[in-house]
């Protein structure tokens, strides 16, 4: 039966070519859209890994001209104590520019067992970072005062990096980095991934380094965890305190929950625009497909009448027409899937293969559903053809 249908479509391949081309391109568009949706959804489902509520970001620039690390350290330590003494402040940390919910990123790489790890997010943090952001330790511990920078300097890695390095084995206590590198890293703990770039972006692999005192030369961010009752009055007081202390610096205070909204919008807007365009294209294709199928079936009234006359039931005729449309779509889907599987095979974008496969399956189902919907009504019309009338027409 199916072989017969394939043959029917194949014989009319020249006539159906444009229709197949249209389905083929729609499939590619739908595949791209689904890949994006699946990617965003999977990232969205992952836990955030930290708490952004009541965290304020203070942006500043170091304007102290001293080269003495100790006096620099003393300067910022005093500021830290001043801020921490305020009743609304729960905790404070100094860190590098690549704070969570910001676009700023700092990436580096290292080799381990001759495997290259590129694009590793490189965070420089202090002992309070984990508490301010309420991050979750999966094993080992966070930095503390005893961690002095020795030959193998202590690091905390994130879950994704741990999985790539050690699989399911514990990472605590291991040394990472190859022998020829001078600076090897001693893993003291593993934290849950923190989604630095907002809810919809894969956090990637990350290494947290304990910052030494010289880092104050180039640090530019403070994160402050405040109590829920901290309001604008307190914020202006905090602002004044810092601005008076750091006379030459430019200060800005942001709220991390606003930053989250901002960065999520930044990543969602292009997707929403693409979705709107894709929905419109789909409606367009659906209407067109419907029109063409409808016309084709009307043109074949004589054939349908003949089929009815020799005993085919109305249902079987309409089923045949629907099946024909689906077979037609299958040709396009074959070609489309062939192209689509190149993405995971050639690793065109750095996405896991499962995302592509899920998107591929969803796109195939979607196209079949579309074609089914478009052919159901024309098929039903064909079933209503009276053999006598149809044959009389010719």
């Amino acid at each position, binding site marked *: 039966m199916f072989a017969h249908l394939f043959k029917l479509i194949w014989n009319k391949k020249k006539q159906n070519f444009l229709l197949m081309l249209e389905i083929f391109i729609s499939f590619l568009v739908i595949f791209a859209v689904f890949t994006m949706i699946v990617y965003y959804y999977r990232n969205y489902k992952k836990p955030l890994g930290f708490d952004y509520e009541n965290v304020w970001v203070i942006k500043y620039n170091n304007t102290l001209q001293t080269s003495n690390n100790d006096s620099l350290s003393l300067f910022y330590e005093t500021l830290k104590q001043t801020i921490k003494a305020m009743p609304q402040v729960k905790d404070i940390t100094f860190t590098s520019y690549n704070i969570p919910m910001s676009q700023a990123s700092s990436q580096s790489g290292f080799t381990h067992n001759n495997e290259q790890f590129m694009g590793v997010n490189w965070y420089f943090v202090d002992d309070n970072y984990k508490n301010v952001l309420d991050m979750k330790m999966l094993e080992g511990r966070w930095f503390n005062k005893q961690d002095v920078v020795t030959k193998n300097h202590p690091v905390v890695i994130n879950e994704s990096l741990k999985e790539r390095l050690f699989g399911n084995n514990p990472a605590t206590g291991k040394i990472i980095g190859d022998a020829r590198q001078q600076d090897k890293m001693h893993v003291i703990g593993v934290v849950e991934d923190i989604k630095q770039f907002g809810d919809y972006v894969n956090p990637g692999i990350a290494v947290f380094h304990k910052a030494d005192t010289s880092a104050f030369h180039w640090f530019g961010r403070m994160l402050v965890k405040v109590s829920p009752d901290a309001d604008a009055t307190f914020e*202006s007081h905090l602002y004044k305190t810092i*601005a008076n202390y750091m006379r030459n610096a430019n200060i800005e205070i942001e709220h991390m929950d606003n930053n989250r909204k901002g960065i999520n919008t930044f990543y969602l807007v292009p997707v929403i625009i693409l979705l709107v365009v894709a929905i419109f294209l789909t409606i367009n294709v659906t209407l*067109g497909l419907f029109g063409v199928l409808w016309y084709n079936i009307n043109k074949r009234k004589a054939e349908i009448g003949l089929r009815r006359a020799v005993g085919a039931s109305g249902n079987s005729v309409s089923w045949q027409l629907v099946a024909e449309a689906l077979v037609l779509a299958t040709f396009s889907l074959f070609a489309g899937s062939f192209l689509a599987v190149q993405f995971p095979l050639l690793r065109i974008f750095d996405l896991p293969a499962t995302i592509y496969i899920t998107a591929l399956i969803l796109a195939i189902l979607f196209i079949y559903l579309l074609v089914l919907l478009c052919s159901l009504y024309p098929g039903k019309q064909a079933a209503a053809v009276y053999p006598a009338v149809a044959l009389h027409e010719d």
Partner: protein
Amino acid sequence: MLKNYFKIAVAVLRRKKFFTFISLFGISITLTILMVLTAFIDKVINDNYPDRKRDRSLYINSIEETGEHARNGGALSFYFLNHYAGSLKTPVKIAIHSGSNATNTYINNKKIDLRYKYTNAAFWEVAEYDFTEGKPFTQRQIENSEHVAVISEDLKKEYFGDMPSVVGKYIEVDNVQYRVCGVVKSVPITNYVFYGDIYLPYTVSKTDYNGKEYRGDYLGILLAASKSDVPKMRKEFEQMVPRIPMSSKDYDKIHTYADTYFTAFVRTGNEEASGVTIAMTAIGVFTFLVMLLPTLNLVNINITRIMERSSEIGVRKAFGAASGTLVYQFLVENLILTLLGGLIGTILSFVIIQVFNSIQPIPNLILSLNFTVLGMALLICLIFGLLSGVYPAWRMSRLNVVTALKAS
């Protein structure tokens, strides 16, 4: 003749309402998408507020110093722009201004986020902001390091409320009091070169602007005396760059460019890949994809429509109409359909742009359907009509008279 074709086209359109609807839907929505997109791009790259002398200006937005092991880029220093760009002969004015940085100010227990920008006096002559009151600060005020500020209308509203005039009033920003000397119409954030809420003299900047390093926080605009001097000015800048001494042993080359606004806007900072090519390719691919599917759809629908009219074609052919005449007729019909779709599309885009302007998702970004956009739309319409009409018309003209007549 054309009148006849027009009559036939209208009759055909009215006969099969469903197909007409599909065609018009496809054409009008595709055009709407493309038109809103062009309106947006046109606003972002062709808007001439506040730099009305854009065709006489070249923009210096970045510098990159490269060496064997080092590569560092960013905005430029005041010193570099003042000393090196300032030594050029062709430019009549050089505007130097810092990139817009963010800070907060607090008033009546309310927080205001704002962007500040340091400028020199020439900035106000190169960029012609619309002053709703007051005037820009002068060269003398800059030399005296006076704490004066030009603020945007948005900031005025937020900080002072509905006060009629704020010139002479004080505003506190970054813990410093500034006297307002002028208020300007706000610039949308998409125009990042000129965007800001408060403009201050560079001499009151907290960071040292006399440092001799090349990278810093400033951007420059070179203004030529006339449009014809622009290529000469660019050449002079290009010739000057290789003569600049290296700022450090680590570097052996300095890359910096005086570009037109659009090139500067899309410059990636990468030497190998030109930003213009990337931006153009991205827009081109998007447009192609958006147009490809509806076009295919239209071709399919059009084929269906002509096949239905095979008896008419057969009769006309039998009475001696040449293939060319029929192709011509069908193209005209198709163009009428497309133009009708274009009209609906224009109305739709107009509505969408009105909605966009009343919501203002990007503050102060007011889109408009101007003549460029309308012209583009018309062009797109014609391409669309031809693309979707040529193939069906060609197939139709090859129809055999006997088959065509027998089909009915």
